[in-house]
């Protein structure tokens, strides 16, 4: 039987991907250009018995999804620009209290109110370092509407597996553009639920790492009863200031990412095998880059594309390997130099790394990338 198809905006695809993953709670606040995610959820969630709530502000939206997640729900919020800045406080809470949640950030120009209807990729570093304190981070940067759907499903899986917030970074272009989507059948994409405790309620400790770095999370309202705090805590969830316990907890949280890079990282390579020049691009701009690579190849220039789909953790090993093979790397992004810092760091600048920055509310065009590659030739 032919699959169900539709022409959908990226934001709509994101919402429908969340529903496919089993999301049953959305807490949001209206902000351009992310609002379609909330609009679709407000319409579709109650059909499944799920809950949509529009909260009084961005922080409350984030708080509501964390409360809901503790009852066992898979939860989503969506925001942009100033909204993601406001949410940082409780993204930190989700990290330390290890509460699964998915946050969509449809990036727009900034700082502050910036360009609400203009695209941007300037929240790359904020997705990693936005909240105070050391903490793990996962951020996904899908490019097409089909990929936004499937990466949203993966974002839920990663949040549930690693007990932490996962961010999906879209931008005004791929959030609003419409493309054909083929809906996967139920079961076609893997959907993972959080691990439940198997010990007796009396023995349950919400942060017990004796069986591994990711302790099972019980649900409020089940037979398990426990305490959650934003303070540094011991295995039983209660506050501690014991240096050795705090240190162990912080390191374990970062280890959730570092020890599982192979599972979390995802990239796509295009014509990199014999490439002498690599364009490193993500999200919407990776589409300009792919177009540019085709143009360059036609002109006999051996260009290739390296596209992180998981932006955080950054695909360090493969990036470093490619850097040893090529003559130069070009990094186009709709900001004034964010991911390029990471490219420079992990490649140790074994080859020239040149950026193209653009913050005027217009996308970086294939022609700009072609010109830059020719310049570094």
């Amino acid at each position, binding site marked *: 039987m032919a699959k169900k198809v539709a*022409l959908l905006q990226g934001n709509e695809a994101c919402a429908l991907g969340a529903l496919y993953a089993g999301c049953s709670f959305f807490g949001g606040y209206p902000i351009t250009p992310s609002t379609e995610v909330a609009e679709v959820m407000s319409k579709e969630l109650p059909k499944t018995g799920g809950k949509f709530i529009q909260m009084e502000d961005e922080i409350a939206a984030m708080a509501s999804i964390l409360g809901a997640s503790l009852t066992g729900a898979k939860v989503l919020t969506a925001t942009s620009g100033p909204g993601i800045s406001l949410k940082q406080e409780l993204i930190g809470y989700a990290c330390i209290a290890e509460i699964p949640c998915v946050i969509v950030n449809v990036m727009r120009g900034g700082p502050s109110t910036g360009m609400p*209807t203009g695209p941007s990729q300037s929240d790359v570093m904020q997705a990693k370092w936005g909240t105070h304190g050391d903490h793990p981070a996962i951020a996904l940067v899908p490019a097409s509407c089909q990929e936004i759907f499937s990466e949203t499903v993966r974002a839920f899986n990663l949040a549930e597996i690693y007990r932490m917030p996962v961010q999906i970074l879209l931008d005004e272009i791929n959030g*609003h*553009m419409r*493309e054909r989507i083929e809906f996967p059948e139920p079961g076609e994409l893997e959907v993972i639920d959080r691990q439940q405790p198997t010990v007796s309620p009396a023995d349950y400790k919400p942060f017990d790492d004796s069986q591994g770095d990711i302790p099972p999370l019980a649900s409020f309202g089940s037979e398990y009863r426990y305490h959650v705090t934003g303070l540094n805590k011991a295995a039983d969830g209660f506050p501690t200031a014991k240096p050795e316990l705090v240190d162990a907890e912080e390191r374990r949280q970062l280890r959730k990412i570092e020890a599982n890079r192979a599972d979390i990282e995802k990239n796509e390579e295009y014509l990199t095998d014999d490439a002498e020049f690599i364009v490193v691009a993500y999200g919407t701009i990776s*589409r300009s880059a792919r177009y540019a690579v*085709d143009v360059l190849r036609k002109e006999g220039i051996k260009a290739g594309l390296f596209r992180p789909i998981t932006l955080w953790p950054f695909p360090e090993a493969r990036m470093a390997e490619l850097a040893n093979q090529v003559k130069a790397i070009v990094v186009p992004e709709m900001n004034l130099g964010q991911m390029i810092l990471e490219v420079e760091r992990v490649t140790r600048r074994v080859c020239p790394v040149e950026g193209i920055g653009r913050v005027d509310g217009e996308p970086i*065009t*294939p022609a700009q990338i072609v010109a830059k590659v020719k310049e570094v030739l």
Partner: protein
Amino acid sequence: MSSRYELRFSGAGGQGLITAGIILAEAAAIVEGQYAVQSQSYGPEARGGASKSEVIISNDPIDYPKATNVDACLALTQEAADKYAIGIKPGGMLLIDSDFVKREPKGDFKTIKFPIISTAKNEVGREIVANVVALGAMVALTGIVSRAAGEQAVIARVPEAFIELNKKAYNTGYEKVKSLIA
């Protein structure tokens, strides 16, 4: 890249040009199974201002989602014509509303004109369907989707009670251009 075809629908906010772009993209991507990307740019104001909707149609997956060299452009207002006709590629096409675009943009492209909004108002009966008249005209002009695919996409989009009105609008626009370029 070879079959990449770029269309731009421009005018004032509120004229339904984003919807026209969506219907064309649905005709291509859903009805005909081609690849299509529709995008738009708009200001914070929901009405007025210059608005544009772009559709890229191709036999192959589409990389860059915005127009680079526009094959065919529609402009319903002078402001839109002044602002958006610039991107038309040599040998491309421009369709304008002859009542509203008095200063014709000059360039290496072919300009086709008829009173689009007035046609909607007086021949179809409702000004509100001017965007669908324009859609029919653009389909006739470009042939990028079949006449039937465009009509099917129109029918799929509009509420039951307005199907006949919109079919009339679409076919009126289609016939107008066919007779102009015949």
